[in-house]
């Protein structure tokens, strides 16, 4: 038997894999960008650079910019298309408009042909028609600007190597250098670190130091030498800050320095001081010198601007050379592992469901758990009612086969079976809650207002009073099905030889039915028991919405509507596991309940 269980568990892995692939594909195909919904439909093109950058960072954090299944980007050489992108990125829309006139006039020149094929690759609707019509060149140039922006953003770090080569080449014209800098700005988010994070990582040290080194090279003349008394005073205060335990006190002290003291902090940061001193020094610099490095330039940038920005970007490239020029084995690793699907599977395997994509950003796990705690008791109650009512009803029908009792009960069951639970819910609300006919039950939620202050007895009664109608709705449908099932199961048993034998022994009819009949008839019914586990977790969407119950059904419904993919994926995954476990459980229950069935001959084969 254990071998069988083990086999089943092994089979679960590919099944789960399949479930995740299907869910993944459906989510990919669902319309709407989940991130855009989160960012209030902004972070869109045409918004300001900042919001746009935040959007891109979020996208990269969630790995949504990666290819879906296989990542070939590390193998591709982007030199040619980056050259074109840089060319257009360095021009204003007016300049692009002029270029378009030239392109349209002489599309055969090899240089122009390359430009055109790049522009066509941006998939602008009606590109060729618009190119032929000088009237629409103005619009087309806007579209090209946006298209190039999107292309560069999508390409991300993969285009950096080619752009850095353009920037490094002494032959490059100023306009192309501007274009390359502006392209870099789009491809790389957060190129420099200006301070340490809270749990300071020594690996960041060279990055932070490089930032301030670059800044200091240019800014030093603006900061006069500090005299000895001031320096001493600063050293004292710095030491006092280091000795403080509370971060809020440190922050208060940090805010009491002056911009002219920065020379002191630069010296501390760039010398061989221990990491904790560097952390504080960087924090101070960061506070008093916002945006130390120029990373972006306008189209009409001055030579000095270009020079500075180019130096900064090349420094960034040098610092991160490993990232931009990976070795072959790394490239191969990226090929399979740096994809959206691989990242998602990894999160699922490690049960890191992450945080909800909605604004609270609360962890998904606890939220699901609290919803389970609401839904599960309702489902358990519903199951109890189903078994307690359906089995006796089934027996009653079977015993009175084909007479008026059987007929009328069966008819009632059919009627129940054909009423969808949510219709029943609406009818119940209308008849018993809204006070139009009766006002017997509350129409909303599982607790009264003020139930927090009740004693446990009153609380329980209050709960049962609220739960009554939802539970009835949840049980009606399955109740009918289960009663039918037990009726037929009982009928089958009654026709068996051993029942006839029992009767022949002269046992009373009650004893025959309950002792000999029911026991055997229950076997198939008991095994159905495992099937309700997924239901318990899944809750019921419609009933929970109708009665205002914050359970699993509502959670799934709301997650779908708000495109909360982390929550949704976790729900699907957990449900898939529960379904498979319950199927396994059903199999095991069969063996336990019915000695005629065994795993022998299946497990050993």
């Amino acid at each position: 038997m254990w071998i069988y269980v083990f086999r089943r568990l092994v089979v679960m892995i590919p099944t789960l894999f399949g479930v995740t692939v299907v869910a993944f594909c459906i989510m990919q195909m669902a319309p709407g960008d989940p991130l855009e919904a989160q960012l209030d439909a902004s972070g869109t093109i045409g918004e300001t650079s900042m919001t746009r950058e935040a959007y891109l960072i979020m996208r990269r954090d969630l790995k949504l910019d990666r290819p879906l299944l296989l990542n070939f980007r590390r193998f591709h050489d982007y030199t040619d298309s980056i050259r074109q992108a840089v060319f257009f990125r360095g021009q204003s829309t007016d300049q692009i408009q002029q270029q378009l006139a030239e392109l349209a006039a002489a599309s055969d020149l090899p240089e122009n042909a390359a430009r055109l094929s790049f522009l066509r690759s941006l998939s602008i609707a009606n590109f060729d028609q618009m190119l032929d019509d000088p009237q629409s060149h103005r619009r087309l140039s806007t579209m090209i600007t946006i298209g190039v922006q999107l292309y560069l953003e999508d390409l991300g770090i993969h285009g950096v190597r080619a752009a850095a080569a353009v920037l490094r080449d002494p032959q490059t014209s100023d306009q192309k250098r501007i274009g390359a800098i502006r392209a870099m700005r789009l491809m790389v988010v957060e190129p420099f670190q200006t301070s340490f994070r809270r749990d300071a990582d020594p690996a960041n040290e060279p990055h932070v130091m490089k930032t301030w080194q670059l800044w200091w090279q240019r800014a030093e003349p603006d900061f006069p030498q500090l005299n000895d008394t001031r320096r001493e005073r600063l050293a004292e205060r710095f030491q006092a800050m280091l000795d403080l335990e509370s971060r809020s006190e440190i922050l208060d002290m940090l805010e009491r320095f002056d911009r002219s003291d920065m020379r002191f902090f630069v010296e501390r940061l760039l010398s061989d001081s221990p990491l904790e001193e560097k952390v504080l020094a960087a924090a101070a610099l960061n506070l008093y010198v916002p945006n130390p490095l120029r990373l972006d330039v306008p189209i009409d940038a001055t030579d000095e601007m270009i020079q500075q920005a180019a130096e900064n970007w090349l420094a960034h490239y040098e610092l991160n050379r490993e990232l931009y020029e990976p070795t072959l084995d790394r490239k191969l690793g990226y090929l399979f592992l740096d994809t959206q699907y691989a990242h998602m599977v990894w999160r699922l395997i490690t049960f890191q469901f992450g945080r909800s994509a909605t604004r609270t950003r609360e962890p998904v796990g606890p939220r699901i758990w609290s919803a389970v705690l609401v839904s599960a008791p309702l489902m358990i109650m519903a199951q109890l009612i189903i078994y307690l009512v359906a089995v006796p009803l089934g027996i009653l029908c079977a015993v009175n086969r084909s007479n008026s009792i059987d007929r009328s009960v069966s008819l009632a069951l059919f009627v129940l079976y054909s009423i969808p639970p949510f219709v029943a819910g609406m009818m119940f609300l209308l008849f018993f809650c809204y006070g139009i006919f009766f006002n017997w039950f509350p129409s909303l939620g599982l607790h009264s207002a003020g139930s927090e202050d009740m004693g446990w007895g009153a609380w329980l009664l209050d709960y049962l009073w609220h739960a009554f109608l939802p539970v009835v709705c949840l049980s009606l449908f399955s109740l009918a099905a289960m009663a039918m099932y037990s009726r037929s199961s009982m009928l089958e048993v009654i026709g068996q030889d051993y029942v006839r034998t029992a009767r022949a022994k002269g046992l009373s009819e009650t004893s025959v039915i309950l002792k000999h009949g029911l026991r055997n008839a229950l076997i198939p019914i008991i095994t159905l028991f495992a099937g309700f586990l997924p239901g318990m977790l899944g809750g019921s969407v419609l009933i929970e919405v109708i009665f205002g119950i914050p359970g699993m059904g509502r959670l799934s419904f709301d997650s779908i509507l708000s495109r909360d993919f982390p929550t949704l994926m976790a729900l699907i995954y957990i449900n898939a596991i529960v379904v498979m476990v319950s199927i396994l459980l059903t199999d095991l229950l069969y063996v336990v309940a019915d000695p005629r069935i065994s795993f022998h001959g299946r497990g050993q084969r």
Partner: protein
Amino acid sequence: MRISLILTGFVLSCLLLLTGPGCGGGSGPDVGSGRGRAPDGQTRSALLRETRGGVMPAERDTLLLAYGNDTNTLNAITASDTVSSAFQRQVYEGLAAADYADPDQLLPALAESWEFDEETLTFTIHLRRGVRWHPMKLPNGQPLPDREFTARDVKFTFDCLLNPHVDAAHLRSYFENPDAQDESDRFKISVDVVDDYTVEIRWTEPYFLAAEFTLGAVPMIPRHVYSVDEDGEPISFDFTSREFAEGFNNHWANGMMCGTGPMMFREWSRDERLVLDRFDDYWGEPFFFSQIRMRCIPNTNTMVQMTLQNELDWASFPDKDQWLQSETNANVQGGKVHLVEFEYPGYRYIGYNTNRPVFRDREFRLALAHATPLQQIIDEVFHGLAVPVTGPFLPGSSAADSSIEPIPFDLDKARQLLDQAGWRDSDGDGVRDKVVDGVRVPASFELMIFSDSRSFRAIAEMIQEEFRKIGVRMQITPAEWALMLDRLNSKEFDAAMLGWATGWSKTDPYQIWHGSLADVPSSSNHVGYSNPEVDRLIEQLRVTMDEDKQQELYHQIHRLIHEDQPYTFLFSEKMTAGHDARLQNIEFYRLRPCIDTREWHSSTPRVQGR
């Protein structure tokens, strides 16, 4: 202010994300009477002062309200849906707030007074003294020190929302400079603390809504709460850093509220209820009710029935038919429940994608407007509970040119216009056509509507029938909201019936109407409207500080857009609601949310609602 795309009638949680903060502040604080300031050392009690409604507050009385879908967060800076703004209205305050009676006027709130220097474009803001933050506890139960509201909180609030990684794009967009070439000029404002009670906010360029945005749009949040983590230590030393933003977006207090308003947070049970208690130490006119209890009721039928059973004090009835039917309810007849209707800022329209050849002619769009039976729609679908709209600004507001008449329903005129523009039925299939750019284009298009709304469907069918009569074929395509947005953003649609939730009068038309956004994917100008004259007027409006000139420009823009008809402007739907008869002094205003609960009082207290 900022305008957001909405679908009234059927409110889904995903839509709420798109519904902006509505009108600035909205927290409706009191006229700077100074009555709230207590002499030092004396405890203030809310019970000793009159409410805004002019009566003494109730000792114990609970106001029962309801909401349909829960909000995602209670963080005042990152929340952007209408439900959370309803939660926050009595808890958070801005520096100033628009006057309910005259929405173009700002009234002092947390700022006692301010000056604006037109030379330097600087607001010098003098903060009210003696304003206390609501008491707050860390998750470990340790209470945070009781703090006064100071200039540091103002600076902190602006630091947070200007941090690009904080989820506050809807507020940040007020202050961002779209033409920024450099990291240093990314924002149109800079905030400087002068002393504990004085702040200077400087704009880098003139902007006509500068006062509204600076003073009215931003709710103030407490630095001593939102700058610290669960252990009470600062999240980061730099409030503009990504590290801080991550801590802020995932903040432990995102499920609580801590403001300066008349009500303070008591508990929020997700998908169940939100409870607010009266804040005794409030500086201004106290709230009449000692508690507000809002219940989450996703089933609108239940919400309506509970209101009719006096189990809720106030609820809006989104379904007009239901509202009308409720008139026969025994409790309404018996005077225990009152039904009310009031105007609400926002309008519905049919937008035409002007990139499609069929919509290129102004005459064609005008003919469609003439063939739209607007009055019939208002009478039959909305039972008269809607007001026709003639342009992008709402009827009755100072921005709308009231001399413009709605386009009359006139099929003959429509036919005539189509004939003039060269739309004729040349192949005899009952549908007109015309040669555009050498291609024969039939007068046929798809109208995209929201699939879950009955009223949208009914309107679309009525219009379809009339269009057929003038030889224009319209196919109705219901779409789910996300799909609809997707197609709007990529401009892959012919026509769409939608709604805008606008501010009452002063809104910036740039977002929807400026031609520079016409070809930009995902912009609000999804119909691709571009008129150089309108562009010029909008640009001029944005730098005009004089109110009379602003109004003149608004009127010109209104008229030009009305003449161009890029939309068929439909109507502004009225809001319908019901309330318990015990509520007194309910007035309606044009400023969202159109009611001011701070004026309300009750005849009989409700001590504990069911």
